[in-house]
């Protein structure tokens, strides 16, 4: 394969305890630690491994978001990507920018870059939609394999075999390239960016484009009307007898 395109998203750091903003319009992002979406990290790692194996010549990282998305792209470059593309938009990436708009923007980038393979994370940990990869594949008319736990690209670069996670276990699918793959947890363990690569990352090319210039309608079709924290966990109750337990399970918890 000549080129692999990897999508990465800047999200609230996975370990942060998020808080709802005072006006309940969304999660409080000010002063909150942001990092690369964990599944995007796995996607980047997989793309770099393909290059290290000789299965790909170039890995290009792309991110859609505000100016700070460039930091996320620098992380991807530090992990080993060759080039980065920043699609700039100030629309809130955790709820204002819808997966369809993202898929359409990525479609434009694919048209520009002509990659042989697109790898993205299966879902972002803020929106949790898991729809960008399938929609992108559909827009492009390409094959797709989502929730990938293993990826093997054929020596001739014409097809790939993917073992994907399902609710019942895994299934193995074979698909022709070009294709869209979404990375799941077991695909790999992402590397730490190493010192020499962190230094080199600063000099690697990073191209900035304006989302508004790409001819995609960015207006949301899904609108978040309110965000609330989950209810406080109620204290546990001790029951006096088995009959009491059965009664509560049936009439209060409604699980039997």
């Amino acid at each position, binding site marked *: 394969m000549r080129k692999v395109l990897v999508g990465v998203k800047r999200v609230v*750091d*996975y*370990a*942060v*305890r998020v808080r709802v903003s005072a006006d309940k319009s969304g999660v409080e992002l000010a*002063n*909150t*630690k*942001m*990092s*690369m979406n*964990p599944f995007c*990290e796995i996607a980047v790692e997989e793309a770099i491994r393909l290059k290290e194996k000789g299965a790909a010549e170039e890995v290009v990282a792309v991110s859609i978001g505000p100016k*700070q998305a460039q*930091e996320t792209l620098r*992380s991807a470059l*530090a*992990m080993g990507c060759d080039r980065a593309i920043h699609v700039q938009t100030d629309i809130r990436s955790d709820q204002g920018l819808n997966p369809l708009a993202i898929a359409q923007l990525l479609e434009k980038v694919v048209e520009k870059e002509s990659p042989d393979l697109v790898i993205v994370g299966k879902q972002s940990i803020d929106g949790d939609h898991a729809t960008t990869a399938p929609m992108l594949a559909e827009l492009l008319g390409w094959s797709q394999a989502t929730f990938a736990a293993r990826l093997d690209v054929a020596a001739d670069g014409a097809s790939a075999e993917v073992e994907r996670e399902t609710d019942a276990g895994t299934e193995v699918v074979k698909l022709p390239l070009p294709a869209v793959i979404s990375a799941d947890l077991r695909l790999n363990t992402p*590397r*730490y*960016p*190493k*010192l*020499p690569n*962190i*230094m080199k990352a*600063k000099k690697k090319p990073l191209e900035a484009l304006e989302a508004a210039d790409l001819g995609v309608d960015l207006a949301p079709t899904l609108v978040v009307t309110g965000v609330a924290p989950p209810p406080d966990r109620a204290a546990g109750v001790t029951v006096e007898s088995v009959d009491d337990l059965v009664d509560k399970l049936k009439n209060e918890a409604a699980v039997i």
Partner: protein
Amino acid sequence: CSRVLEGVDACAPYNTDWMRKWEGRARVVAEPASTEEVSAVLKHCDRRRLAVVPQGGKTGLVGGSVPVHDEVVLSTRRLDKIEGLDEDTGVATCGAGVVLADLDAFLRDKGFCAPLDLGAAGTCTVGGNLATNAGGVRFVRYGSLRGATVGVEFVTADGTVVDCAGTPLRKDNTGYALPQLLVGSEGTLGVITKVALAVPAAPSSVGVAWLACDDFGAVRRTLRLARTHLGEVLSAIEFLDLPARDAALRAQPDLSDPVEGGSFRVLVEVAGSDAAHDDEKLNRFLEASAEAGAVLDGVVAASTTKARELWRVREGVSDAMSNAGFVFKYDVSLPPARLYDLVDEARARLAGFELDVAGYGHVGDSNLHLNVCDATGYNAAVHETLEPWVYEAVAAAGGSISAEHGVGQCKPDHLHLNKPAAAIDLMAAIKRTLDPNLILNPYKVLPAAAVGRPRGFPLFCADDERDDE
């Protein structure tokens, strides 16, 4: 006192320290729920000349919080109310029995954090932290707990409640700083019941780098470069030798070392309010360290999850060594140039034995933790080879025999190595003034010869004289 435990079984958990090195024979444990109850317990014990051991989370490493004989244990566990945080002054007030991690969680909810962090945070109490002047991994950033102590409410041996926490404002120069007397006194001058602490704003951005250094000279150069390039955003800098790293990795098989080469690992943490600014500084520091040849290899954690994995290697050393056999732990301060020499000298002295000798610690504070682990168990010959040599060598090099862990029941006889007789005599005079019957934590901190004996020695726990209170 609203909760009192009696008997061998009920008191057993209170009699052994966390490392299971020391075991007392207390038969009575008091768990007061308020300062008034603490006062009542102490008044009673002082009147009857019953020795008392104040006890918090019991995570101390020098046997300071467990009975030596049958002293009454006074647990501060139930003094666990967090009274509040003044977000304008940055002063938090809480009971002495509040667990450090709980205080930190409460503070983080409001955008602040505790001014110290240590491996035992999930168990140790804030009162205990003050009583031992605990150090920890953020000392290099937030300084000594002495600086963070705004006020303390404590009860003296005779039950007098002394409230020096009533003005929770950072500047109050009215009289002698009694709280400072209590800080680091390890429960021998009074029982701390309430604490007012100055707490910093929680940093919104934290970055961690893990570096490989060739030798200890390179570690020192890395530290100097960190101070120069990271300055005010440096929040922790720790070092480990390879035996320490290996012990931590053996005990946590899901972790691995992401760098190769060299004889040391250095963990550098930056924390601040601007991720881009801090990342830029971290990158410049890494570039400078690589160019100077101080660092052979290094990685940066891109997310909090990965940063925690790196910390787990460093924080896992102590438990890993403790669980691998019998461990001699030494916590010393040494001049930076000599900091690791002690480890090499220990290895040379112990060459005839099969032991795991590891050196690691807070290199930014010139504080070494030397651990000597014998997988076969306690060996008196090893003990004699190590002590008193280790303390004497440290003192001869101009270091402290206890950088942060304190004296407890472990080191009173070595105190003279770091403090002149005049100082120890003055300490004893203060002790006799505040606790004339010598009931508070006897056999700890000060050598027996200096403190003397109370009237009516020996101390005893008299069942027949107990009242119902």
